[in-house]
């Protein structure tokens, strides 16, 4: 059976250590495997490692799966793991940061390794799910011992090929045109899927992509735009599979600067103003009109699908224009103020429309938002550089799938690598204190407590103005039986087709 699949992005490389970006990792995750993997329920399960144990807080032992073969027939051994560790952790590799907590990896025997950590680290397994193992011998044979170095015109051998242990093999690849995967008959795991071939085509234009699905040229598109969901569902032989996505959309704010551009004060530093903005936003209206019900208004920046989610905290301040006006008045902004607002164009579902709608809603309480739309590449450059005062952002906690990723990147006061996506933003000493502990605490109960505390603080102080959790709306032929995980990964080994 052939599954024809289209999505707006393109796989950036067949080299699993060359790009740390979810779409690519999601697709080539069908070719390569890590020591562990996420299952249907987004729980960690053994993959190339059969089992593991902690010898001490900072020393882990992994028992590797026996009898696993790479696509080229080479056996999978501890040498491959060590090779992959050195390769992905080498300077210049995007994965160097991910493997940074590991001090060294030692081969115990062909199918056992020991890992020494630099410090206690609670999310090692989560991270390992996105670190794929390569065949040492193959990589050496094609001269790709290092992830591609962009500054020199060398390497590049893995643009169109790749050898892993996963359920699918790379059959052919023309970048930006077509990539074909075929099923790996010798896969170590029990084959649940019945797909022989996957043909992936990138189609950037939304309308064209939907047209391709509707015309039957492709069987499956990830991310059917919300406006086309109804049409796809109404088309016979087509279906939409819907699931909540881990990503929460919110407005981030400059809460540190003394003044905002064009003002002689910084209203956003005042929690009452932040709350006023929050309450001025008609999130249900956005959900209905713009998201067409494909969203869930959220109050904390954690999707229910993540571990340690605390439903009791997920309660929004109500939409209330009057309350909002009252808050503004109380804060001394009865006449409102002008607010520079920056949004990415095309990074999140209907980002532009949501921002526009927000401008209208803020206008009703007297805040004149001046909206600028940015191409994502510019947005992603300027935002961390602290150039924006009020901006839209979304965060999912990928690929760690843990609150720690969210908190450390977007809650922590910006210091070095912590709080990188919270420039000039929310700052709370208690949060800063708890963050490293959340990263190292192995005990589940204690983690739950700390995470809940941080989430509550952040919610009550309106660290961000939360909007909603996006839904995944995958459009497909009703012959396809897919699973739609909240992390948006396409795990084809669970798919079947009629």
């Amino acid at each position, binding site marked *: 059976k052939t599954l024809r699949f289209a999505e707006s992005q393109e796989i950036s490389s067949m080299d699993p250590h060359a790009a740390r970006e979810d779409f690519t990792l999601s697709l080539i995750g069908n070719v390569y495997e890590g020591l562990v993997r996420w299952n249907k329920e987004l729980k960690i399960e053994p993959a190339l490692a059969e089992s593991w144990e902690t010898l001490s807080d900072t020393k882990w032992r992994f028992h590797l799966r026996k009898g696993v073969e790479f696509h080229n027939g080479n056996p999978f051994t501890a040498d491959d793991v060590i090779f992959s560790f050195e390769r992905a952790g080498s300077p210049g590799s995007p994965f160097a940061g991910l493997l940074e907590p590991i001090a060294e990896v030692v081969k115990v025997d062909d199918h056992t390794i020991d890992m020494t950590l630099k410090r206690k680290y609670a999310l090692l397994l989560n991270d390992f799910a996105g670190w794929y193992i390569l065949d040492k011998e193959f990589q050496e044979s094609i001269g790709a011992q290092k992830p591609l170095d962009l500054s020199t015109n060398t390497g590049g051998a893995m643009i169109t090929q790749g050898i892993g242990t996963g359920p699918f093999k790379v059959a052919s690849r023309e970048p930006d045109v077509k990539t074909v995967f075929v099923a790996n008959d010798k896969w170590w795991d029990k084959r649940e899927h019945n797909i022989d071939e996957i043909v992936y085509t990138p189609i950037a234009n939304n309308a064209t992509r939907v047209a391709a699905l509707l015309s039957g040229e492709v069987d499956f598109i990830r991310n059917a735009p919300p406006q086309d969901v109804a049409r796809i569902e109404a088309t016979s032989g087509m279906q939409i599979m819907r699931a909540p996505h881990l990503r929460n959309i919110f407005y981030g704010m400059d809460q540190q600067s003394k003044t905002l*551009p064009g003002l002689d004060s910084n209203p956003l530093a005042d929690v009452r103003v932040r709350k006023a903005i929050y309450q001025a936003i008609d999130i249900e209206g956005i959900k209905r009109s*713009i998201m067409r019900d494909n969203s869930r208004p959220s109050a904390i920046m954690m999707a229910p699908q993540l571990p340690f989610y605390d439903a009791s905290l997920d309660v929004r301040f109500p939409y209330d224009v009057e309350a909002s006006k009252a808050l503004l008045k109380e804060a001394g902004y009865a006449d409102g103020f002008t607010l520079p607002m920056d949004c990415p164009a095309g990074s999140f579902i209907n980002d532009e429309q949501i921002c*526009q709608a927000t401008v*209208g809603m803020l206008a009703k309480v007297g805040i004149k938002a001046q*909206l600028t*739309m940015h191409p994502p590449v510019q947005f992603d450059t300027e935002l961390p550089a602290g150039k924006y005062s009020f901006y839209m952002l979304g965060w999912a906690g990928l690929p760690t799938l843990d609150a720690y990723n969210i908190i450390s990147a977007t809650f922590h006061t910006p210091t070095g690598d912590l709080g990188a996506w919270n420039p000039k933003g929310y700052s709370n000493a208690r949060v800063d204190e708890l963050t490293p502990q959340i990263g190292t605490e192995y005990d589940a109960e204690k983690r739950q407590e700390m995470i809940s505390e941080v989430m509550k603080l952040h919610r009550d102080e309106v660290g961000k103005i939360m909007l909603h959790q996006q839904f995944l709306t995958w459009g497909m032929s009703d012959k396809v039986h897919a699973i739609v995980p909240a992390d948006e990964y396409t795990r084809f080994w669970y798919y079947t087709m009629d």
Partner: protein
Amino acid sequence: MSQLVLRLKAFGNSELAWRFRNSPPVIFAAVVLIVLVFCAAAANLIAPHNPFDPATLNIMDARLPPAWIDGGSSTYLLGTDEQGRDILSTIFYGMRVSILVGIAAVAFSMTIGVALGLIAGYLGGWVDTVIMRLGDIQLSFPTIMIAFFIDGVAKIVMPIGMREEMRFYVVILAIGVADWVQFARTVRAATMIERRKDYVAAARISEVSGVRILLAHILPNTIGPVLVLATLGLGVAILTEAILSFLGLGMPPSQPSLGTLIRAGNDLLLSGEWWISLFPGAALVLLVLAVNIVGDWLRDVLNPRLR
């Protein structure tokens, strides 16, 4: 005053007016054009809503179909878009932006092109060479590339809060810069012919200054084809703005042009909310078509070589 009346009368009797009266399609196009321009110019007076005032929008009114379709509301004759803006009003306002951008861009490129063309044609020599090579280089940058460039530069150079307001000028600049070459070439060619004419020599013998010769003598005699080019260029400029919008480089959503509206509507082509893209699209095609028909006719009528 009576002078004006006389002139108007003279115009009424002129060949141009006669040929105009005898070309029904052109009359039709001109009427359409006048109506469209009027709707655009008087948008804030005749549009039932003001889509540029965000405070008046209600998201609960979003995506209403045209009034004559089930679910439509008579408040919104042609329906509403995703933000709850009245399509009809948005078209009026958008047309105003499109026409303004078009006219300003053409005026910009015309001014630059005419000035450079005059200088190149009159002075000749290395000045001419430099200007014309500049034109060649300019031509090897497609309009869209130039737009990307100017857009990129503007985003950095402008203070953050100003960017969206300056967008209007950026778009004009991007379209205008790309188009000066054809004006320059036309004017240069005409200037090279005119400057050899004896009336210029006569003026020089009478010790008239070079600047005055250029502006008072040569310019009026080269402007005819320029005006025709400008009319036709207007259509192109409006379309270019629409294409830039499609690529995300046009007018911002807060000041939508017809192009911006179509781009937004483009994503809704499949979803059944056809009115959001169809009406602005039809308005755009109608506008450009009318401009082109009139421009085309002017070109045929004013071309001395065809008479």
